[in-house]
């Protein structure tokens, strides 16, 4: 039992906590509850009156093909992006965690994407792969004959989204993996090597279990970030198109809330997103302690 300050200072504890608590309640908890409240209403065409409609917003969403398209695409997009960025950054972190020549240069070049926003990453990749000006799309077509045109083709735009956000997350994941690998004791790996373990065995049996807490943490953080922040790429580049191929849930929510002013319909979407986030968070707390090895 750690020693504490005496009870007469308890008022100070409340005082120290009050700013955080006030902000969380005012700007996070109260608006979230209001999202729930608003999701039961529909605004009149001129937006001056709210009509109670019960669960109608949810019913309309869950029977709307447009919404299922958004939801499905967001989930598939997030899963692919998280898988690519985590596995590739882990591979690079393990390979640069060796005492080889030039490793510092490799490391310092790999972390740069983290400083770029999703929107910036989208702009750069959008130009690189642009059907008219992009150097990458030009050489892809020259070498393979395949025309990568994200302006007209939905699947190309979807792939562009995956590339741009994987690139951004790569830098982020790489830093965390590097930090985690520093804590894996070299003597443990050396003794395994003496016992004749090859690099793959060393990785799967020693390194991977030891860094699994950070991998799990990154899995959750990546999922949430990719799911919510890719909005920036969509808004600067594709605007949900072509043919709704990049109409991810956050972009649809934004359009309904601030362009069509359907606050009730948008709030119902917020509540659906909350259910997804709550699911991920509960999964995190449930499995963080069990399935993950700690040092």
């Amino acid at each position: 039992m750690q020693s504490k300050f005496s009870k007469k200072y308890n008022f100070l504890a409340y005082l120290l906590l009050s700013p955080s608590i006030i902000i969380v309640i005012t700007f996070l908890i109260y608006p979230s509850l209001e999202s729930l409240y608003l999701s039961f209403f529909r605004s009149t065409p001129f937006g001056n009156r709210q009509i109670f409609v019960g669960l109608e917003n949810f019913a309309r969403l869950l029977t709307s093909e447009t919404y299922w398209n958004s939801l499905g695409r967001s989930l598939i997009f997030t899963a692919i992006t998280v898988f690519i960025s985590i596995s590739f950054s882990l591979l690079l972190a393990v390979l640069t965690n060796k005492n080889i020549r030039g490793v510092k240069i490799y490391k310092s070049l790999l972390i740069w994407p983290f400083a770029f926003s999703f929107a910036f990453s989208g702009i750069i990749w959008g130009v690189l792969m642009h059907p008219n000006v992009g150097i990458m799309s030009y050489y892809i077509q020259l070498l393979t004959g395949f025309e990568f045109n994200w302006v007209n083709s939905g699947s190309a735009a979807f792939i562009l989204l995956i590339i741009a956000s994987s690139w951004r997350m790569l830098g982020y994941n790489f830093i965390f993996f590097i930090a985690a690998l520093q804590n894996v004791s070299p003597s443990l790996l050396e003794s395994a090597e003496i016992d004749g373990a090859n690099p793959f065995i060393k990785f799967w049996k020693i390194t991977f279990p030891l860094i699994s807490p950070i991998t799990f943490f990154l899995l959750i953080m990546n999922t949430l970030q990719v799911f919510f922040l890719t909005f920036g790429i969509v808004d600067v580049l594709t605007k949900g198109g072509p043919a709704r191929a990049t109409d991810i849930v956050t972009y649809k929510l934004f359009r309904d809330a601030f362009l069509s002013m359907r606050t009730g319909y948008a709030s119902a979407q917020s509540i659906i997103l909350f259910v997804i986030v709550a699911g991920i968070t509960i999964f995190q707390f449930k499995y963080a302690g069990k399935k993950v090895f700690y040092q």
Partner: protein
Amino acid sequence: MKKIKVSRLFLHLFLIISVSLIAFPIVYAFLVSTLDVNQVYTSPPQLRFGSNLINNYREAWVSSNMGRLLLNSGFISIVTALGKIVLSICAAFAFTYFGNFKGKNILFLIILITHMLPLPIRIVPTYQLMDNLNWLDSYYALTVPFFASATGVLLFRQFYMTIPHSLLEASLIDGITPMRFLWSILLPLSKSNIVALFTIEFIWVWNQYLWPLVVTNSERVRVVQIGLKMLIPSDAQPEWNVIMAALIIGVIPPLVVYLTLQKSLVEGFALQQDK
């Protein structure tokens, strides 16, 4: 011996290809920012250093009012990061070093719950709240709602729990007050955690997109991300050279913060991993 050398060679080859692939977009963005608009639209696309660097950067600076954008983004990033650090330290200190005061667990839960409430979940009511407070189009809307941080509280709380108990015991014998203990003993020890949190939060706020898009309108409070979006016309051919110049300027501040603080960032997280 020979086998090791060959595998080393492959390792380097693989790393060089990967690193070039990851660094190439940045180099490319810079090269485009040096071309003139005709060179951007020539086919085949060119990969070279153009002659229009100074003109592009001047035009990017003037047409986006870049000075103002940088000032706004810098101001809100620093204020929000500092606000989060101060509030997180206070809360973590209260949770770790004070006895079981009434409601401790529920207050901790309230702070943890912020994890489950990202902006899109409450965006309509939060926007309306800003409107009611007359905060739309102001620095308040861009900073105050983000001062609380579950990540920050957890980070510092975790760290304070690893500090030996004898430190507080010895200080208590000297008759130290809580605020004195926080200020002269805990704060100096928290340096690398503070730096780590500052870096992460600065970049986070600088790169925020959805919220500024929704709550700001005038140039007075416009941030870099939105200023750049406005350089891309929806109906005309974009001047990608100028846009890339603006992008390069706009990424320098987070990059500088990141590269100067990178060492502490890694140390701050490495420390966390220990326990």
